[in-house]
């Protein structure tokens, strides 16, 4: 094997690494290794000067390979590859040793941690010798976008893209647009009309010739990769007949929203049994029709609102549904407007009035004499029928935290603030578009802070409440954020494909076709003429399943070759 000139750069990460790993000792230990040209350390390798140091080092020492012992490659591999590129080195000729997340942060024995860091670094050095320069490829970026879900987030995203003169396919499962927001009368905290907001968006969507609206439709299949997806959408006709059509899109925005928590699951609230226990959405309906009445047509004198139904407890969902508190306050105002002489009890856990204007809203709700009663989230109010002698239909029994008393709250109507939960078909959607879900079923973003709308699958974006509960402004902002990302990509016209993918070495391939079936992305095609398989680079996600499975060892997993991994294994065992 040819001689290499390897530069090793060890990061102290402030004290993050240096605290438990003797960075200088690591440098020293690798100094003598074959091919190592330089080994140096720096406080923050990822910082501008740190990156500069790498780029300069490549030039000054004519380095042909670079090893960076620092944090996790998941954190900064891209950064350091960029630094190598600036230094004139192919970015794939760089390898990272993870001596922070998997070493300094998890071991407090300085000696042992330093030893481990040495081993990891030397493994990286051994591995990097076998690295090959890889070039990324480019592919076309189809300017069309598929938006799944016709709620406020989907509508906004579709409009944003279509207004910028790009075609959008808006797929909605039901027969109408608007999603859950269409069931709402007014929005918190300003009691603005939800209907006006939706009418504006829906009218503009309908009037926009760039938006192909597909109602009663579902995504059935999605193949391809970023910039070059092919989506199969099934539209259900009126008479049970359905038609399928396949469209080419470059990106997909998932805006499938949420479903309300089934209040019937909390048995002691008696939803479905007690006639005047209603969910927030049932109450919204009363508001829209102007009939805030008990089942037998009376105006309720006592109304109780119970927060966190299905949210913030061990039994159902641990998370907060984020919008219910303000919605509950809104109900207070609406109840008092419809019937000024009614008494509203608001039974809450913590008042999440965090948004703009919300604290003031909370105050005005207090001013209209809403009785706020607090309970512990792990306890549960119990609703029971009142005695005939009582002046109310129901009594809610709960331990009130702010007074320390066990109390009974009179109620003629109980409104259950049902939380949001991931849609029951979210697993299906996740599978179709190849994104992951967290344990609550919400779609996972690629990074909650860096990239809250992108997913780990390129070209697939998640916006609105399908990613986690959120209110209208935040959903709208996310929808536009995804649109911005897509507009940026469309503007460039082409996409870059990472240089890491599998390739079939023709001369070794026996044409057994075992790999064809194995590939989850159908990225391996069989050429009937040559009787050989080959990989479509843009579709390949570089998982390496085919590489490991090929009986004749004909498939090379770029950047994860057998030689590279063997060298690394030997290295870690030093």
């Amino acid at each position, binding site marked *: 094997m040819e001689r290499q000139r390897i530069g090793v750069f060890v990061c102290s990460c402030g004290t993050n690494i240096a605290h438990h790993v003797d960075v200088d000792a690591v440098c020293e230990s690798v100094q003598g290794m074959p091919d190592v040209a330089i080994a140096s350390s720096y406080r923050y390798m990822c910082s501008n000067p740190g990156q500069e140091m790498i780029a300069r080092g490549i030039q000054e020492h004519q380095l042909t390979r670079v090893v960076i012992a620092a944090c996790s490659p998941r954190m900064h591999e891209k950064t350091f590859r960029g630094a190598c590129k600036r230094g004139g080195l192919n970015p794939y000729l760089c390898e990272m040793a993870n001596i922070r997340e*998997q070493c300094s942060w*998890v071991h407090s024995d300085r000696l042992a941690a330093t030893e481990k860091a040495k081993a990891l670094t030397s493994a990286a050095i051994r591995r990097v010798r076998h690295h090959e320069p890889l070039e990324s490829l480019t592919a076309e970026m189809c300017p069309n976008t598929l938006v799944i879900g016709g709620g406020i987030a989907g509508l906004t995203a579709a409009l944003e893209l279509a207004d910028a003169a790009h075609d959008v396919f808006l797929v909605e499962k039901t027969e109408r647009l608007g999603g859950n927001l269409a069931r709402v009368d007014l929005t918190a905290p300003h009691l603005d009309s939800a209907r006006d907001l939706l009418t504006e968006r829906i009218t503009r969507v309908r009037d926009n010739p760039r938006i192909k609206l597909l109602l009663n439709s579902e995504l059935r299949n999605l193949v391809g990769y970023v910039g070059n997806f092919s989506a199969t959408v099934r539209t259900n006709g009126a008479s049970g007949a359905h038609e399928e059509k396949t469209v080419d899109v470059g990106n997909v925005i998932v805006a499938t929203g949420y479903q309300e928590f089934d209040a019937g699951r909390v048995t002691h609230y008696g939803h479905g049994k007690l006639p005047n226990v209603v969910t927030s959405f049932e109450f919204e309906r009363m508001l829209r029709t102007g009939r805030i009445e008990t089942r037998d047509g009376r105006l309720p004198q006592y109304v109780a609102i119970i927060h966190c139904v299905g949210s913030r407890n061990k039994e159902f969902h641990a998370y907060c549904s984020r919008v219910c508190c303000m919605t509950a306050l809104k109900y207070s105002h609406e109840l008092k407007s419809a019937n000024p002489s009614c008494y509203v009890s608001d039974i809450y856990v913590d008042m999440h009035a965090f948004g703009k204007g919300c604290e003031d809203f909370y105050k005005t709700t207090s001013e209209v004499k809403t009785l706020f009663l607090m309970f512990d989230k792990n306890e549960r109010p119990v609703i029971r029928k009142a005695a005939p002698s009582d002046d109310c239909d129901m009594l809610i029994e709960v331990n009130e935290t702010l007074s320390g008393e066990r109390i009974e709250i009179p109620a003629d109507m109980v409104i259950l603030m049902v939380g949001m939960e991931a849609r029951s078909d979210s697993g299906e959607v996740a599978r179709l578009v190849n994104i992951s879900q967290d344990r609550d079923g919400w779609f996972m973003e690629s990074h909650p802070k860096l990239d809250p709308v992108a997913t780990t699958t390129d070209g697939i974006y998640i916006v609105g409440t399908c990613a986690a509960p959120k209110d209208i402004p935040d959903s709208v902002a996310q929808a536009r954020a995804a649109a911005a990302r897509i507009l940026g990509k469309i503007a460039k016209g082409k996409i870059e494909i990472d240089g890491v993918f599998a390739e079939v070495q023709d001369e070794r391939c026996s044409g057994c076709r075992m790999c064809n079936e194995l590939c989850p992305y159908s990225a391996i095609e069989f050429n009937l003429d040559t009787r050989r398989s080959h990989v479509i680079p843009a579709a390949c996600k570089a*998982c*390496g399943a085919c590489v490991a499975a090929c009986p004749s060892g004909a498939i090379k997993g770029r950047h994860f070759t*057998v030689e590279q991994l063997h060298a690394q294994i*030997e290295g*870690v065992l030093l």
Partner: protein
Amino acid sequence: MSFEPKIVGFLCNWCSYTGADLAGTSRIQYPPNLRVVRVMCSARIEPTFVLRALAGGADGVLICGCHPGDCHYSEGNYKAMRRFPLLKRLLKDHGVDNDRVRLEWVSASEGQRFADIVTDMTERVRALGPLRIKSDLQTDLVER
């Protein structure tokens, strides 16, 4: 000085490696005996990797992938799951105790679980002592 086993870990990039990173960001401590080799998916792990590791002086090998159903590549972990028992049998025939080679599922959010597995495995391998058949394996299996 007590015996400090060397364990090689093959971790899939999306779940287990991230989970291991999470153990780091959460500062959950575990023994320093594990040395990690990152692969993109547990399906990439060839049996020879394991043999190579054992031959090279490892006292144990830990393979971690996403939980069944969670694979970033849909079903790569199922492939690993199917390969593993065969490998184990092979190793057992060669006198390698089954406790030395382990397949575990660790998700990106299971930093604690990862640390627990490493701790447990290190203890077990420590109890088993160094892998004595290393030299035999070297002559039998090395070089493909």
